[in-house]
């Protein structure tokens, strides 16, 4: 048997490395005119990544000027990476970001002006607002979602309950649904943007304004959350549950009702196909309310703007929007597409209806600080470290200090 000497081995290794490197550069050099366009996004759901990759590879195949690549950056690291990238001038050419963060990044001065470059006349106004600062358009809405009430139909029937439409009815129903092993209600209450997103529908439903939490309505919303905790229908562990965790608790049957978004539906259908659930508008105090969520595309100024615009034009065409929205469980930000997006009996239609009551957060460059004050307030109430009145007053002081 021929043994391979150390030298032969090294030689082989060097050759294969060289071949690998050259192979890599050869594909990049296949056509001198091909330019690279990079995108950062934070979706962790696999089906979302696959859908985006599909649109990207279709785009790459459809023309020969640009090659688009997408890179996943975890949501928790996204602001950090963008901040560092901005200082070090190492940004991608395009980002897909959470809509409430849009104003902050735009203030950073890293986004290109897209005014008049896209026809957004059919888009929902809230989504356009989220990427408009001082009348200048800094992005294009990717798609929208909002929160609604999910309920376990079997548990509801067993308890003999009707779908609640007001806060009082909701409290009665979730008390009836709560048992030793089942919590009546859950919504993500983590102390960050995700928690704020889930709390704002309650605040807005009282008619209170985001920046006016120390009001009758603000205190009422906080008191309602306190009631949910004190009556034991909601677990204090909600302060550690992301929306994904809440959905897992729901499909495991530990929670009878939850506040969540339509992007959970594809996962719920594949993970728990037998679960009998339905959706309803979030019960109201004085008016229906929900929080508008979703992502926006933004083009980095100084990057490969032409390439990014070419991809953006492709990705926002009707056909691609429809494909992406269906795969994501999102609703199109384009109202004309959204209205005919789903079959009549689809559960998504409820979310289209809820969208009419959904408001956007901000837009405000200091939104993260406002959001932090609000999420601190309901976390204090949930953990019992402050009364609703104290929490509201404290949050108000912080918010007043921010918006002046």
């Amino acid at each position, binding site marked *: 048997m021929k043994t391979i000497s150390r030298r032969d081995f090294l030689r082989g290794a060097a050759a294969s490395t060289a071949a690998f490197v050259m192979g890599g550069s050869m594909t990049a050099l296949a056509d001198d005119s091909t330019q690279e366009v990079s995108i950062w996004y934070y979706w962790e759901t696999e089906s979302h990544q696959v859908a985006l990759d599909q649109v990207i590879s279709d785009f790459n195949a459809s023309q020969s000027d640009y090659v688009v690549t997408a890179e996943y950056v975890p949501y928790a690291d996204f*602001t*950090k990476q963008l*901040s560092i990238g*901005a*200082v070090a001038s190492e940004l991608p050419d395009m980002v897909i970001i959470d809509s409430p963060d849009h104003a*902050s*990044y735009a*203030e*950073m*001065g*890293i986004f290109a002006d897209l005014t008049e470059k896209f026809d957004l006349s059919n888009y929902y106004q809230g989504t356009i607002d989220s990427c408009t600062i001082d009348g200048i358009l800094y992005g294009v809405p990717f798609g929208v979602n909002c929160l609604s009430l999910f309920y376990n139909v079997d548990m509801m029937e067993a308890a003999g309950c009707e779908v609640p439409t007001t806060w009082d009815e909701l409290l009665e129903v979730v008390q009836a649904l709560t048992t030793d092993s089942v919590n009546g209600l859950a919504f993500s209450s*983590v*102390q*960050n943007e995700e928690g704020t997103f889930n709390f704002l529908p309650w605040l807005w439903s009282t008619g209170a304004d985001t920046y006016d939490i120390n009001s009758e309505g603000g205190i009422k919303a906080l008191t309602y959350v306190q009631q949910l905790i004190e009556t034991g229908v909601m*677990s*204090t*562990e909600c*302060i*550690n549950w992301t929306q994904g965790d809440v959905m897992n608790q729901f499909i495991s049957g*530990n929670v009878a009702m939850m506040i969540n978004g339509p992007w959970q539906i594809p996962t719920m259908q594949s993970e728990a196909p037998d679960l009998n659930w339905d959706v309803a508008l979030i019960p109201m105090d004085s008016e229906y309310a929900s929080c508008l969520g979703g992502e926006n595309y933004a083009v980095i100024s100084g990057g490969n703007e032409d390439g990014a615009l070419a991809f953006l034009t492709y990705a926002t065409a009707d056909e691609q929007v429809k494909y992406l929205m269906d795969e994501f469980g999102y609703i199109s930000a384009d109202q004309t597409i959204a209205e005919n997006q789903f079959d009549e009996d689809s559960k998504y239609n409820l979310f289209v209806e809820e969208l009419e009551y959904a408001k956007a957060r901000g837009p405000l*460059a200091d939104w*993260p*600080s406002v959001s*932090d004050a609000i999420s*601190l307030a309901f*976390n*204090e109430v*949930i*953990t019992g*470290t*402050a009364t609703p009145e104290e929490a509201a007053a404290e949050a108000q002081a912080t918010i007043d200090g921010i918006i002046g």
Partner: protein
Amino acid sequence: MKAIKKFFRYDNIGLLFALPAFLYMLIFVGYPIASNLVLSFQNVTVKNLVNGEKLFVGLQNYIELLQDSVFKRSFINTLVFTVACLVFQFLIGFALAVFFNKKFRIAKPVRGLLMMPWMIPITVTALIFKFIFATDVGILNYFLKSMSLIKENIEWLTTPSTAMVALVCANVWIGIPFNMILISTGLTTIPQELYESAQVDGVTKVQSFWRITIPMLRPTIESVLILGFIYTFKVYDLVYVMTGGGPVNTTHMLSTYSYKLSFEMFKYSKGSAVANILLVVLLIVGSFYLKITMKGEEN
């Protein structure tokens, strides 16, 4: 030319050898520290991070921090956390080291196994402990309940006081092997003759522990405690994963609060001010360590 030659004669040649390391430290340690210091005296937020004037605001960030209740809380938290962890890690680690120093059959493999917590990535440990301490599905509550020690599940990670306890438990578990292995090494350096002659003189086991083991281990103990302090004081990943500084900001450490200020709330200057305060504390403790090790080398 002559002067250069003269300079490098004898001992001074050592300076040349230290130059690469010095340059490396200057670029990769010195520069970030200096730039962080400058940043903390400015007012950099999202609005002037890339473009725009970065105003020099002097000590304003530090003054504002001193009035910030979350900062005060995180400073105290970091101290309490560090001291609590050090005490338990050290005592348990010491006890285990002495125990496994006895030559019984499975001493070596078991001591090896006990190194596991030190080798597991901290984020993994943090997740495991997050599950252990979970209210409704956590195994700790399950055991306590089945032994009838508690009636209602304890909300470990969502109550401010118990969340800190949970963090300390997790970190103690991680830190025990570190203490144990260093003290074990220290124990092997004590000459057996000392114990033998003491035995001849009729000294009891307890006496020889206090009069021989402890004094002989003193340099080791000092190093372990100071290194442990430095490792523990800059804790980040464990807290970030287990509680994220919550509930209601009650378990923030200096490191996590600095991160939150910089990268969640875009207050870059304030965040770097917190990081600098963390650095100053560590520098003070670190200088003690240097003093001890230098003294050791002189001897």
